[in-house]
């Protein structure tokens, strides 16, 4: 069965490395913070200006002066630090944030990502996504495998205006874990109960399949 949003977040949480700085985007990526493995220490950066972001506050303890980039109320961890937007993007562009997890509307097999604009329909803006994908050494995309119309979001070439080129390293969807290699998409894992054929049928781009494809362990 295909994973739900929390399942995708849970699988991405397995990618977190100990003692690293991580930026989580809006949507499914935000949920990753709920599934950090016990033996892993990560520090979350939110690009509006905090390093050491903690969980959402308890009811009644929210502070209008403490939000994340999704404008949600948050708390700060011990040792957290607050800074302005220029310093925040110095961390991002300067390569100091080691992992970026973000959502996408399309990813192409050479690692291009589109997630900020549907011409004529939705123009909300790129926020910090273009800065993040231009510089982060490791970029993982969290998204559903297909869009609401059932069309593949993993494409040979993006059709929507792109956010960044040649930057996505890995994709975790409700169906599969996919590596973006120089040769294209490599299927690494399948969601529990999902067959390789189902993944191939839901993917517009070519998939490189080497031997048996393991089921995700969640």
């Amino acid at each position, binding site marked *: 069965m295909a994973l739900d949003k929390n399942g995708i977040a849970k699988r991405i949480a397995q990618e977190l490395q100990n003692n690293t700085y991580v930026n989580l985007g809006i949507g499914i990526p935000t949920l990753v913070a709920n599934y950090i493995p016990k033996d892993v220490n990560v520090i979350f950066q939110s690009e509006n200006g905090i390093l050491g972001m903690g969980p959402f506050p308890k009811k009644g*303890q929210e502070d209008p002066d*403490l939000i994340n980039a999704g*404008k949600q109320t948050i708390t700060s961890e011990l040792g957290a630090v607050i800074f*302005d*937007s*220029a310093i925040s993007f110095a961390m991002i562009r300067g390569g100091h944030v080691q992992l970026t997890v973000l959502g996408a509307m399309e990813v192409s097999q050479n690692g291009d990502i589109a997630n900020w604009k549907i011409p004529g329909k939705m123009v*909300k803006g*790129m926020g910090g996504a*273009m800065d993040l994908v231009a510089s982060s050494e490791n970029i993982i995309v969290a998204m559903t495998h297909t869009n609401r119309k059932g069309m593949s979001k993993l494409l040979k070439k993006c059709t929507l205006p792109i956010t960044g*080129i040649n930057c996505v390293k890995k994709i975790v969807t409700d169906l599969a874990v996919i590596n973006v290699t120089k040769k294209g998409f490599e299927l690494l894992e399948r969601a529990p109960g999902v067959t390789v054929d189902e993944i191939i049928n839901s993917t517009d781009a070519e998939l490189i399949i080497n031997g048996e494809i393991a089921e995700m362990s969640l």
Partner: protein
Amino acid sequence: MINKEVKTIKEAIKGVESGMTFMFGGFGLCGIAENSILELSKLNINNLTCVSNNAGIDDFGLGLLLKRRQIKKMISSYVGENEEFERQMLSGELEVELIPQGTLAERCRAGGAGIPAFYTPAGHGTEVAIGKEERIFNNKPHILENALVADFSFVKAWKGDTAGNLIFKGTARNFNPLMAMAGKITVAEVEELVPIGELDPNQIHTPGIFVQRIIKGNNFEKRIENLTTIN
């Protein structure tokens, strides 16, 4: 020390005119100059170019100026959550320049710091790069972005002194220190205004040299845009 305190919001925004470029600090509704925005929305000025990360919501923040069609052009990175904005943009009434958030921050910082332009990797290969000079550094393509300055910058801080020195609280800091630097006239609203000598010089975020007028804000609603809590 130069005393920069002004007593009324009218005095704080004195000199604003149609056609000017304004910067507004804040991220969403967090750390916005509520009193200045409200006062500007009462004036008969329009054709404004506004530099702000976001555009407020329909009935608060920059949404107030949008509703009265005072804004000709917005320079922002993210403009969701505002129906009137979307309507004006899609109908072509409002000109919108969307730029990456880090580029926006750095353009303001550069404007205040006397750096006319800089190269950044953000936006390379995208629509944002169209018409911009491209150059390779360390085998990586970058695009040239120009600095931004403003006739007025409206910023909000937590504490300030009469010399214009500012201390921010929490993530209400965001773009405020950068836009304070880039304004020909920077108006700072603070929740608490103290005499000089009361702030520890080591703890000041924005030096008063960047602030021309400082006022204790009358009332700050400090609305929360996206209240999220756990049980």
